């Protein structure tokens, strides 16, 4: 391995050369992004030929900063988070060469947005319980079932999908992982309205959806292993930049406190200070986690940070409504709309209060996370399992 500083130097030179050859001000957006991918400057920690240069992951933030400060177009990162954060590393790890070539480039450029068809009404925390069936007919799989909590499904070109291909074996063994074309006529995407009034997510009904076997990712029956890899990527997805003090929800509430001296009470004061302290400590914990990751030492803090984040968002937004008093009784708008993204700081306190309730459910409930911490980090005994060795079809649903 070459000397790290030399590697960094060399990488900077490459980027400078690329920018010299492709002026962001004059190059067409898609052309620029495709060229960046082809130059291995998309995700430099991916292998050469697939948008990367096989470099350490820790170098990526600087790459992004350099492109950003040069005015380069972004690759639709906000909408395609699932594609970039979850689908791409899974395709890289488990895909055939053909699949990598077909899918990674338009995924990274944002030309093809991805969504995730994992959760079902009966398979939330227990993902291995998915009931969506995929039945093989020659070189095609015919898929039927219902998925929920699918964000960006209505804008997505492809999906990563877990379906049951063999109901005669225990639940973890009968799953297979697919790449599903969302334009297939059997795919019906319906908005799923939430308690905020909006529909940020979707339900996706799959009726005789035909997936070619070439879009199977990993072996038949290997779906659980592939899905687990995907979900591990989700948990790693912590921001690269240091969070500022009073970033996020705590800043909003602190501002309300400062702007409304007439609403302050002694009781709310101490509650706010406790939460401010908690938020500051959580921020520092994130900072330490980033310092560890930079040294290649991932710690257990990733799981615990999501727990803390959810609790803080919920307690802060709850306090904010009490602080607002009469104004806390009012809401912005219950109209069913389809927002592009979650906006915790730009909307009213009632929205924050309601939306934050999802923070301890989406992406792994707080209950599941506590169990994971207890078992994987603290080494406490696993939950008694009664469904491990019984064929899926015989399980009580």
């Amino acid at each position, binding site marked *: 391995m070459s000397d790290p500083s030399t590697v960094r130097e060399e990488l900077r030179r490459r980027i400078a050369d690329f920018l010299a050859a492709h002026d962001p001000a004059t190059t067409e957006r898609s052309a620029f992004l495709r060229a960046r991918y082809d130059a291995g400057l998309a995700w430099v920690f991916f292998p050469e030929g697939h948008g990367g240069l096989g470099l350490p992951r820790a170098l990526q933030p600087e790459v992004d900063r350099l492109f950003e400060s040069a005015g380069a177009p972004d690759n639709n990162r906000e909408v395609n988070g699932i594609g970039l954060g979850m689908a791409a590393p899974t395709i890289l790890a488990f895909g055939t060469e053909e699949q990598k070539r077909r899918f990674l480039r338009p995924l990274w450029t944002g030309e093809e947005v991805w969504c995730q068809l994992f*959760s079902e*009404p*009966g398979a*939330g*925390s*227990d993902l291995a*319980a998915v009931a969506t069936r995929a039945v093989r007919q020659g070189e095609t799989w015919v898929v039927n079932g219902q998925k*929920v*909590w699918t964000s960006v499904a209505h804008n997505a070109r492809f999906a990563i999908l877990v379906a049951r291909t063999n109901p005669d074996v225990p639940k973890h063994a009968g799953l297979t992982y697919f790449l599903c074309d969302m334009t297939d006529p059997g795919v019906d995407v319906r908005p*799923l*309205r*939430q*308690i905020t*009034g909006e529909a940020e997510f979707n339900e996706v009904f799959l009726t005789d959806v035909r997936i070619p076997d070439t879009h199977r990712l990993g072996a038949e029956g290997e779906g659980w292993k592939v899905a687990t890899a995907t979900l591990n990527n989700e948990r790693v997805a912590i921001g690269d930049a240091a969070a500022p003090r009073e970033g996020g929800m705590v800043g909003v509430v602190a501002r309300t406190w400062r702007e409304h001296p007439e609403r302050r*009470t*002694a*009781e*709310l004061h101490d509650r706010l200070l406790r939460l401010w302290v908690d938020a500051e400590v959580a921020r520092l914990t994130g900072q330490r986690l980033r310092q560890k990751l930079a040294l290649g030492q991932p710690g257990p803090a990733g799981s615990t940070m999501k727990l803390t984040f959810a609790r803080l968002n*919920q307690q802060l937004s*709850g306090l904010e*409504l*009490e602080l607002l*008093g*009469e104004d*806390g*009784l*009012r*809401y*912005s*708008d*219950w109209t*069913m709309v389809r927002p592009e993204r979650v906006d915790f700081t730009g909307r009213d306190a*009632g929205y924050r*209060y*309601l939306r934050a*309730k*999802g923070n*301890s*459910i*989406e992406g792994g*409930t*707080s*209950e599941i996370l*506590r*169990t994971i911490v207890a078992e994987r980090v603290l080494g406490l005994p696993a*939950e*008694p*399992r*009664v*469904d491990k060795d*019984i064929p899926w079809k015989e*399980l*009580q*649903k």
Partner: protein
Amino acid sequence: MSEVNLLSTDVEDDLRSAVRDLLTDRCDPTAVTAVYDGDRSVVGGLWGALATELGLAGLLVSEERGGAGASAREAAVVLEELGRAVAPVPFLTSAVIATTVLLGSDSELLRALASGERTAALAVPLSTAPGSALPLVRADADGRLTGTVTSVAGALEAHVLLVPASTGDGVSVYAVPATEAALTPVVSLDMTRQLTDVRFDGATGQPVLADAEPAVQRALAAGAALLASEQVGVAQWCLDTTITYLKERRQFGRIVGGFQALKHRLADLFTDVEQASVAARYAAATLAAGDPDAEIAAAVAQAYCSDVAVRAAEEALQLHGGIGMTWEHPVHLYLKRAKADQIALGTAGGHRARLAGLVDLPPPGSAPANRQGDRS
């Protein structure tokens, strides 16, 4: 602080069954959810049935004046059931608060309220705590009112607004036909008790009570004491529904309600909800009896029950998982009601601060402050 009866009487049990049966029939969660999208069709018929068929509008009014001659105990039972159904009806605002304002007056309006023929609302923000300053509109010598009151609960359903107004000669309450005021419905956190901004531009009101500050404060105090029972109803629905759901839901091959961490949380929640029901009942019983402990009891009940209701609703949502986050499942109706109720008629923290004065647990630095107060 005498030993009041904290159990249900047979009469109260009968009343509870009657209200619950009616709500089961006529207060479907889907219809309640529809009020969030502006379809308030459930409200009128439901309130009519409760107010006149069951005679709940006049519960607190004496029989001589056309009411049922019942007490705060019975009103508490009704509110528990209304809370359990998040019923979008003006019982608290009209039959409790507005009615209590008029109990000491000789207004004929009271009889109309008691019969359910008319419905009234006290024109103060829902967040007004008992004992706090009232927002006042001005009344001129001809009884013409000018001013704005924001976030009034029950005004949308009211024929008559009871408006505390400064007359230059103290505070009087005026009865103003709702049609005389400019009502702007507010998009509310809890649409099952939708708020209204009310503007008076020289509206003509009829004075129904002079020197009205004590009567209004008494009404707010009664409202706060009884709101606790509504909060208990909300909490009980949340607890019961969650337990029922967790006994059915399976994950990892097990009944989810069998996971010990959830069992312990539900045991704690059950403990708190049981205790909340006692606190609310004590507040209602002392209010009904005119017991000198009523003020402390109300502060205790509000301080305790409003947070329990919020926690019960929050736990219900969390323990329902994803389905609890959907518009389709009614748990959000309870969360919104619980959170709005926490702010209504004073927050828990506000009631604790009031309690401090009632039970001689003064805040820091209060001794000098009191002495200054004595001097002025």
